[in-house]
């Protein structure tokens, strides 16, 4: 057990004049308690107006990404005591429009995603009573790409996104490469079209913030590198 002070960045859209402010909540935290458990406990026992997104509690739905002690993380996967500090600051993720307290708008995330035509594009019809074949080696190329939970942690941590609100974003590049790398996909030109643009791939300065921010240990920067190669190949080809 340890007494932890949570310093939470709050914002109420109905009170624009007040703007953002910090509110402190003290909580006795035991071993095993995640930041999400703590936030729930504060909401349910101290202050019902504290607002954040959450659903699965198990790191798979992507709802609870927020900035904890300066780093973008999933609240439900972050052990409070592992942060090794009596004070824990919690803020909404940077770069997205604020909605309320720790909740931000996902609109920029969705806009970027849609730009890369995030679906399998095929021209050859599939076999009618069978699956398409894909070797385990071909399938292995999708590992580290398909697991994205769209939490938004990567794009929020990216300086290119801070500078350009129309930047498509590392989450979308990762998705684009998930399809370009898929042996079944026949639409790399379509996925890449929007990326060859000033809001696209060329704005990435390989700072690797996105890699550090990803709670699923995925590597958008590598995907960006591969996509750049693919673009160049297509221009020549």
């Amino acid at each position, binding site marked *: 057990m340890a007494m932890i002070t949570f310093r939470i960045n709050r914002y109420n859209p109905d009170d624009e004049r007040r703007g953002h402010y910090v509110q402190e909540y003290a909580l006795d935290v035991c071993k095993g308690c995640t930041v999400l458990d703590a936030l729930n406990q504060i909401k349910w026992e101290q202050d019902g107006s504290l607002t954040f997104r959450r659903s699965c509690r198990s790191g798979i739905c992507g709802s609870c990404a927020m900035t904890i002690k300066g780093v973008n993380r999933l609240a439900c996967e972050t052990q409070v005591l592992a942060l090794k500090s009596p004070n824990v600051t919690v803020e909404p993720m940077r770069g997205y429009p604020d909605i309320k307290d720790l909740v931000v708008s996902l609109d920029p995330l969705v806009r970027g995603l849609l730009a890369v035509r995030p*679906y399998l594009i095929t021209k050859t019809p599939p076999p009618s009573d069978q699956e398409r074949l894909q070797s385990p080696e071909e399938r292995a190329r*999708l590992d580290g790409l398909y697991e994205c939970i769209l939490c938004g942690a990567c794009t929020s941590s990216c300086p290119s996104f801070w500078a350009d609100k129309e930047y498509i974003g590392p989450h979308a590049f990762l998705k684009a490469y998930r399809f370009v790398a898929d042996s079944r996909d026949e639409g790399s030109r379509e996925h890449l079209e929007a990326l060859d643009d000033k809001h696209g791939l060329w704005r990435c300065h390989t700072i690797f913030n996105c890699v550090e921010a990803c709670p699923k240990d995925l590597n958008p920067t590598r995907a960006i590198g591969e996509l750049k190669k693919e673009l160049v190949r297509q221009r020549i080809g």
Partner: protein
Amino acid sequence: MTNFDPESIHDVKGVPVHSVHRHDVVIVGAGLAGMRAAVEASAEFDVAVLSKVFPTRSHSGGAQGGIAASLANEEEDHWEWHMFDTVKGSDYLGDQDAIEIMVKEAPVVVREFEHMGCPFSRTREGRIAQRKFGGHTKDFGKGGPILRACYAADRTGHALLHTLYEVCVHNRVRFYPEFFALSLIVRDGVCRGLVAWDVIGGGVHVFHAKAVLFGTGGYGQVYRITSNALANSGDGLSLSLRAGLPLEDMEFVQFHPTGLYQSGILVSEAARGEGGYLTNDKGERFMERYAPQKMELAPRDLVSRSIQTEINEGRGIGGGPYVHCDLRHLGADKIMKLLPQIHELAWKFLHVDCIKEPIPIQPTAHYSMGGIPVDIDCRVLIDGKSKPVAGFYAAGECACVSVHGGNRLGTNSLLEASLFGRRAGKAIVRFLRETRDFPELPSDAADAAIAEVERVLSAGGSESVGAIRTELKDKMSAGCGIFRDGGKLEKLAGELRGLEKRFRNIKIDDRSEKFNYDLLEAIELGHMFDFVELIVAGALKRQESRGAHSRTDFPDRDDEKWLRHTLAWKRGEKVEFDYKPVTITRFQPKTRTY
């Protein structure tokens, strides 16, 4: 496509005109059931999908283990074998016409997912890979466990859910993300749409539709220890009850044997499918005593009861309420390759490295077999038997068709949600081809919803929603969990009535309209009170033990009296019951042993 004509939009009292939307089909829920239906119907009609969480945050994404289909990619398999296992697993309460449809269409549905782009794991030959799962066997139960569960590592639900979202994006399905359904509009046996709350912006919206589909998922959150997401509060069941419709077989609640100790977060059955052991305080593989042949791979209800018996008889670890799931003998390679997510979960939530230590586990409330009664085309039945509500459909975990009967087999529910979602989509398309006009929208359509929101936002009582919900969950776990008996159930019913009274005197901290989860959690708790009463009353009535429903005062299955489905309505303060026969075609009830 219907032409949108703003002139023809009805005035609905208390709702601004711009907040009345009109779509041919309105689907509530963006899990596998809701989005699979949307994919189907959007080819021809204007489809809107509402979800209280962003689509890819739906709980289907949490499913790990697999989706069942007798593809026979890895070894010989037949739909008849799959059917036998499902019927037997259901403890003969599953309707065999619906089960036959499901097991026959399963290969088509799974292959379609592959065609849509789902990144399934592959066999050497490049086909969809399959693994073993509890209760799935060879040769009508005579052979051993069979490789039938199609999977994408241990992220099957995530892979399927994202694939469907991608196809919906491609098909230009109109999403209303973070819209919370408040009430269903049914008048004179015709469904006319629904009323919802815009979570981000605040405000009541009316959706006028020719057809409505519920794919609102399960209700595990009414139990203290559960594998379910916080969003799984059973809203659709309550909305349906409030519209005067019945629920079916609510007493059947599945407890998964392996939840992480204390949080209930799921350790997938894949852990046992790949060879994990269950051990007690003495280090014994205690399943030897309960299911000598199938051991850890016996069906869930049996394994959960075995674990609970070990715990109740003092053989939990250190005498505590948990046992061990031991993977160590599988070795680091196999664990990291086949069960990476389980390794991650145990580490992140318990700080246990399952390569080196066994994982502490306890049974966790997992799945609701019962739900909104539907026919094989997912049409919701007013009388629970044969009379459909025009234009109202339900599929997935919120529905009861009933393919799972008294107990669901692992990997059969991703299958059910997608397969019946697809069937619902097709049925809706047929319905819409014959239905030119929108049903009339009554001007008081939104009254009940508006009143509910106002009541909560102006609540001036003293009781905390969080505290009442915690009590409800604790009481449900204690009184209506794995083992039940008449005395405990009666006591529980009384306690729930007392709690509900206190619920009428709640306070609220957040009175704003924008992104107000304080408001929504209060509304969700109101939903829970509606249907937990039916779970408990149904469990009390059913004086037998069948599948997941286990009465210590009636330990045997009683086919003579209870080989039938429960139907229950809420009429005022009372629960009313009716019953209907089980459809039996190929397999006559037999004693269920493993």
